[in-house]
């Protein structure tokens, strides 16, 4: 293998503890992915990326840094990648999806913080993730109280810019968000030393739109009666998209979508006919959080859609590419990102409408509203989501969980009972 140990050492990582993470990944990956039959050939790319997840992409990022590029670590789908790409910067996702990082997060955060925040802080402070070491600047956002306070802790250790999110979507809020993006343009220009122009922003908008279209094609294939890809595989594609080069992501997702469309034509499915179709809604599932998908898909159902930030919220809606001057482009970017419907907004009726629409488009038999523990926003919104689904005649199960294995058996029992009721 490549000498990644030297690279990790130079990044100041805690190699001994990191080895423990490397030791559990092969077992989890084997159970979740190698146990599946008839996976699309195209998944080989994502298998390779995961197999060397702390090696291949980190090495690319370090090489880019040597060539003068800056790496921006982000935690949320509201941070506009277009701005960073326009300034020849690189975006890497930093959301922590592993229980492994939680204890290091709990060393500085209350236990009653959501696992995503605890894992993200823990991955940085515990020095066990190369992406958290490589990023030159973190970009936070004010989408919840836990994150707002976590940024204050992380900012003591790494340069951090925070984007202030509106909490409503009135015209004045839309304007505020466009101004926030303008401020971000200045921050990125200063940090990279590169001017953002109408020309490079237009190109960046196109690049990120193409990536969204690639992901959308993969999702589109999941609407077919014969499901050509498992939910676990689709989740992996989406999770890796946050880390990958956007042009390569577009190329690989389009290649996978070609294969999936061919499978649909030939009636190839990875599930037996009649398998119940489930949509997940709720909080994001950052890599390597494969827990819910694995439990559902080993309980006799298929996950066909995720209305989450690691699902449809990430790629739906494009930035208008017809604008030619910088101000109009920034407004177009602001409009697109304000079209994402996160529970941090009030009111958030558009999200409920999205869920009902997606349930119909993906022809789901039931919805599982799954929220991370201590995520008050999504937990409270769960009431409205579940009420609307029931009124629409769509069966729904609400689940609150974290990254730990301890509730897996209990969840399996509840999910199996829910699937049986769908008959």
């Amino acid at each position, binding site marked *: *293998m*490549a000498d990644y140990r030297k690279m990790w050492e130079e990044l100041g990582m805690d190699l001994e503890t990191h080895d423990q993470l490397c030791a559990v990944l092969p077992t989890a990956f*084997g*159970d*979740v992915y190698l146990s599946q039959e008839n996976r699309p050939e195209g998944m080989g790319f994502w298998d390779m990326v995961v197999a*060397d997840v702390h*090696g291949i992409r980190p090495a690319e990022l370090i090489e880019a840094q040597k060539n003068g590029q800056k790496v921006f670590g982000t935690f949320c789908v509201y941070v506009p990648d277009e701005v960073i790409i326009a300034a020849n910067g690189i975006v890497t996702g930093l959301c922590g999806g592993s229980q*492994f990082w939680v204890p290091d997060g709990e060393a500085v955060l209350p236990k009653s913080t959501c696992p995503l925040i605890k894992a993200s802080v823990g991955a940085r402070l515990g020095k066990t993730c190369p992406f958290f070491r490589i990023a030159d600047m973190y970009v936070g956002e004010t989408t919840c109280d836990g994150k707002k306070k976590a940024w204050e802790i992380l900012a003591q250790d790494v340069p951090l810019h925070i984007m202030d999110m509106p909490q409503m979507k009135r015209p004045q809020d839309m304007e505020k968000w466009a101004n926030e993006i303008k401020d971000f343009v200045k921050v990125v220009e200063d940090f990279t030393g590169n001017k953002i122009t109408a020309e490079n922003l237009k190109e960046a908008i196109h690049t990120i739109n193409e990536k969204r279209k690639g992901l959308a094609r993969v999702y589109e294939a999941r609407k077919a009666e014969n499901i050509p890809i498992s939910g676990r595989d689709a989740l992996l594609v989406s999770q890796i998209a946050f880390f990958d080069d956007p042009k390569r992501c577009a190329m690989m997702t389009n290649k996978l979508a070609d294969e999936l469309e061919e499978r649909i034509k030939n009636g190839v499915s990875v599930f037996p006919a009649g398998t119940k179709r489930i949509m997940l809604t709720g909080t994001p599932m950052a890599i390597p959080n494969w827990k819910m998908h694995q*439990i559902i898909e080993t309980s006799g159902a298929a996950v066909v859609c995720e209305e989450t930030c690691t699902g449809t919220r990430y790629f739906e809606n494009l930035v208008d590419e017809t604008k030619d001057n910088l101000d109009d482009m920034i407004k177009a970017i602001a409009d697109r990102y304000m079209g994402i419907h996160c529970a941090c907004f009030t009111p958030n009726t558009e999200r409920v409408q999205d869920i009902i629409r997606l349930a119909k488009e993906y022809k789901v038999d039931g919805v599982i509203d799954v929220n991370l523990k201590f995520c008050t926003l999504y937990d409270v919104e769960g009431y409205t989501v579940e009420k609307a689904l029931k009124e629409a005649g769509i069966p729904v199960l609400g689940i609150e969980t974290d990254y730990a294995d301890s509730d897996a058996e209990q969840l399996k029992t509840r999910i199996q009972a829910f699937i049986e009721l769908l008959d």
Partner: protein
Amino acid sequence: MAEQKKLHYYVLFKTYTQGMMLHELLKKDGIKSRIAPAPRAIQGELGCGMSLLVEPDVVDKVRECIEKNNAEYHDIVPYETSINPGRNRFC
């Protein structure tokens, strides 16, 4: 219930490009291999790298394919492991 371990062979590489190249060559010859993270126990001082997991009944064919194509690899290591979708142990 005790977990049923099964013998697999892991082809290890110095770089992932070598691994992907052999994966393609094996595919051309109709030999099944699966891309997998190499188990930590057989990696020694090597990084968290990719490997190809092959079943014992095709390991000789894998060696033939490597020889025929002069393909690059680091080692082929037998290792008992269990793939258990119902284990519910995550990272």
